[in-house]
């Protein structure tokens, strides 16, 4: 009823506008009246456009092949496309101006512990922003250990075809269930972001060929970053009561520290992160670092990366062994030295921004300097390493929409 009335009213208004315009014989007046009507329609459209639910998606697919079966990033001589393929769908539901619920579903082609194209909940949280600008969230989120942790699966937001695994695979658990709080404030011509988080994380992983749950209890940490848009500096520290099923579930102290720096002036881009993982008991402490330099020439950015990882407490494991149960009732002893890990990784690649929202990437990665270890590579025998180096070739499409 109200609709009919208002429609009639606006019809009357337009007739009045047109007839008054005709009477006044003034094109200016008519134009003014029409412009104000267009403006009010624009406002109506804008109000209607304020959606309470938004959906976004992303997709990656590609092809990778290695020069041997050492298994760097799980890639072997048998070329395959599925492991690089993933789809993500995110829904954001605005409950009020300051509160929303966000759910992100991911479907992986293939990955450790994940079955073929099984869809899993990657993020799922409720977020609320307080009057003072503090944003609090609760639910399942990313453990923010690395500069690109939050967008680990979102290839489109990363410069690389492969994120530097020496750093990014150092802690293989990527999600936690818990709470976080973050706040931004201005400082010295830039802005500071402070974040604290806490919760619990558990996932089945394969370490030294032994599958089992890794659990992080009482996980707490903080991230402090500063950015003036050209430079970004970031520091992170986190700890958790850590246990490994294949090591008998003894609880040990796990600590993680990271420093990151990024420079981006629009053409030249450089990123570097240095990280340290310290785990009590027989499990390896590792130090790792990488540096990437890239330069944008129109839509193409060639880049080069050097990365390094080395376990620091190898002497602790020499002559030691731990027992595992490959199947019920069967116990075998494994030298603890299989947990030692060392490798240096070189990458040359390029990112080509085909159009806004779509990037094409190509990459050649070479890994070597494994020392006495298997380089932490899944296909390189943990007890008797057979490969001294490996090459991985990757082409990839990353899209976001």
């Amino acid at each position, binding site marked *: 009823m109200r609709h009919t009335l208002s429609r009639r009213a606006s019809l009357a208004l337009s007739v009045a506008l047109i007839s008054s315009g005709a009477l006044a014989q003034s094109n200016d007046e008519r134009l003014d009246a029409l412009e104000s009507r267009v403006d009010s329609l624009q406002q109506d459209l804008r109000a209607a456009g304020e959606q309470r639910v938004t959906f976004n998606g992303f997709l990656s697919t590609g092809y990778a092949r290695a020069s041997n079966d050492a298994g760097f990033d799980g890639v072997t001589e048998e070329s395959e496309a599925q492991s690089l393929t993933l789809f993500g769908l995110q829904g954001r539901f605005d409950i009020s101006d300051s509160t929303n619920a966000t759910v992100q579903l991911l479907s992986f082609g293939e990955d450790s512990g994940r079955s073929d194209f099984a869809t899993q909940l990657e993020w799922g*949280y409720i977020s609320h922003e307080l009057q003072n600008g503090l944003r609090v969230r609760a639910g399942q989120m990313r453990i923010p250990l690395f500069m690109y942790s939050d967008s680990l699966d979102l290839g489109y937001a990363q410069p690389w075809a492969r994120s530097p695994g020496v750093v990014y695979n150092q802690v293989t658990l990527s999600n936690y269930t818990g709470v976080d709080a973050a706040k931004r404030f201005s400082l010295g011509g830039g802005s500071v972001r402070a974040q604290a988080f806490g919760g619990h994380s558990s996932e089945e992983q394969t370490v030294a060929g032994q599958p089992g749950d890794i659990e992080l209890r009482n996980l707490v940490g903080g991230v402090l970053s500063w950015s003036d848009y050209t430079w970004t500096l970031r520091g992170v520290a986190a700890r958790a009561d850590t246990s490994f099923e294949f090591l008998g579930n003894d609880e040990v102290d796990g600590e993680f520290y990271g420093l990151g720096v990024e420079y981006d002036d629009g053409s030249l881009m450089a990123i570097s992160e240095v990280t340290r993982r310290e785990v009590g008991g027989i499990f390896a402490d590792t130090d790792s670092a990488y540096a990437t330099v890239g330069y944008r020439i129109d839509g193409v950015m060639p880049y080069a990366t050097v990365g390094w990882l080395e376990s620091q407490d190898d002497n602790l494991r020499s002559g030691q062994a731990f027992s595992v149960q490959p199947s019920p009732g069967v116990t075998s002893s494994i030298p603890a030295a299989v947990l030692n890990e060392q490798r240096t990784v070189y990458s040359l690649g390029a990112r080509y921004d085909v159009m806004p929202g779509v990037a094409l990437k190509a990459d050649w990665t070479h890994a070597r300097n494994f020392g006495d270890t298997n380089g932490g590579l899944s296909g390189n025998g943990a007890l008797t390493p057979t490969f001294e180096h490996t090459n991985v070739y990757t082409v990839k499409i990353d899209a976001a929409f």
Partner: protein
Amino acid sequence: MKSLKSLAVVLMLAAPLANAEVVIIAHPNGVSGLTEGDVRSIYLNRSGKATPIEMAQGMSERRDFHDWITGRSESQLQSFWSQQTFTGEGEPPEEASSPSAMKSIIANDPDAIGYVSPQDVDDSVKVILSP
């Protein structure tokens, strides 16, 4: 001779581009006193001082604005906003399809800021920052 001619044509085409610029606008009773750094923070999701409005992709004002304020290319902006969206940090700004749509949005929202070419400025908005 031919190359001189084409050089002249290139210069003629390039001249208006080099002069093109935008000014930052706000509601007549709205936000004021912003620096270039403030505007950059507002448009790159680092400040809540004002609600940013963008011109639609492909509009010359949008390119001029980002050349001046953020120094980010279109694909860098897309990459940045996809990262913000999928990590729950924020959503890209609302977009206006024309200078008059931009002015109409600004004229009706005291919290919003936007940008137009100087020749498109009228009484409905005020200029708060020029290059």
